């Protein structure tokens, strides 16, 4: 359903873009192709990893560590993992979805996704260099706190 919508959206955008400037549009397709090829090895790995998660890790194990009722350790670990890792969300979101399919609860998965996108431990040096210590520290600390609140709220509403 969403796939149909996104494909239609992309098609319409491309037709409009092509109408205004076909050279630019071709350039954008080339960019898309190269980005796709650059992403492909990771996507291929992800597809295999998901197969292995489903077939070889017993669902009870995933439920035990990522599922079940709310646990502070679980959510904290997911948030820490998300803050430290730097995975493009184009890869992290399918992975997160597969964990939910495999029996993980929404709260830890939400903690992982929100911290992954809002908090960037890895980019802190760049951020400090550009924006200074004060902005960087406040921004990331507040982001961790709010990411946890968001994941709890998502857990409540899902």
């Amino acid at each position, binding site marked *: 359903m969403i796939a149909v919508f996104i494909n239609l959206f*992309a098609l319409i955008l491309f037709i409009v873009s092509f109408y205004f400037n076909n050279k630019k549009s071709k350039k954008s397709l080339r960019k898309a192709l190269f980005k796709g090829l650059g992403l492909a090895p990771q996507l291929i790995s992800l597809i295999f990893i998901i197969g292995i998660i*489903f077939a070889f890790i017993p669902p009870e194990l995933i439920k035990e560590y990522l599922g079940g009722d709310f646990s502070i350790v679980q959510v904290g670990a997911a948030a820490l993992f998300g803050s430290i890792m730097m995975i493009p969300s184009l890869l992290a979101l399918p992975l997160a979805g597969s964990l939910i399919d495999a029996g993980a609860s929404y709260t830890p998965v939400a903690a992982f996704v929100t911290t992954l996108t809002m908090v960037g431990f890895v980019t802190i040096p760049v951020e400090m260099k550009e924006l200074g210590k004060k902005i960087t520290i406040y*921004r990331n600390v507040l982001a961790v706190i709010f990411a946890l609140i968001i994941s709890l709220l998502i857990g409540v509403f899902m």
Partner: protein
Amino acid sequence: MSEKVNLKKLIIKIIKTLFIWSFILAVFRYIFPARFDNAVSMSLRYAKEMIIIFPAVLVIMGLADIWVPTNLVKQYLGSKSGLRGKFLAIFLGTLPTGPMYIAFPIAAELLRKKASLSNIIIFLGVWASLKIPQLGIEIQFIGLKFSVLRFIFTLMSIIIIALIMEKIIDVEELEL
């Protein structure tokens, strides 16, 4: 010329990846023959889902890259303040334009040009977590309800964070 070399490199990397995983899969098949079919069908299901959505997302990102140059973002975000500026910061942040490390220098430049701190923090926050094409992937793989909830709560949080930071931090004292 360099593009051709690049293309070759990328394709070699893809082939290498396929080889490595085929080997790992062969080992798994040898150790767990019973579960092998299950793994393959799960992988194929996700592969199919990726194939139907990723090309479109990449095309949208490519188009945005061409039509929304960072200069345009700077120009618009630098000059508007107030509530309109906040909406603009949200809108510009959701456009599919590049990774986070591109956003920091833009933010710094705008702050030096006296853009309001809260708008810049909103822009950075939205840029990092609420990109439109990524939302499509999120809905496809996790679900619409999750995605809508995350969008609403994250947007509210980003605005609150921006307002808190504007209260606490005096931009005049910063050395940018």
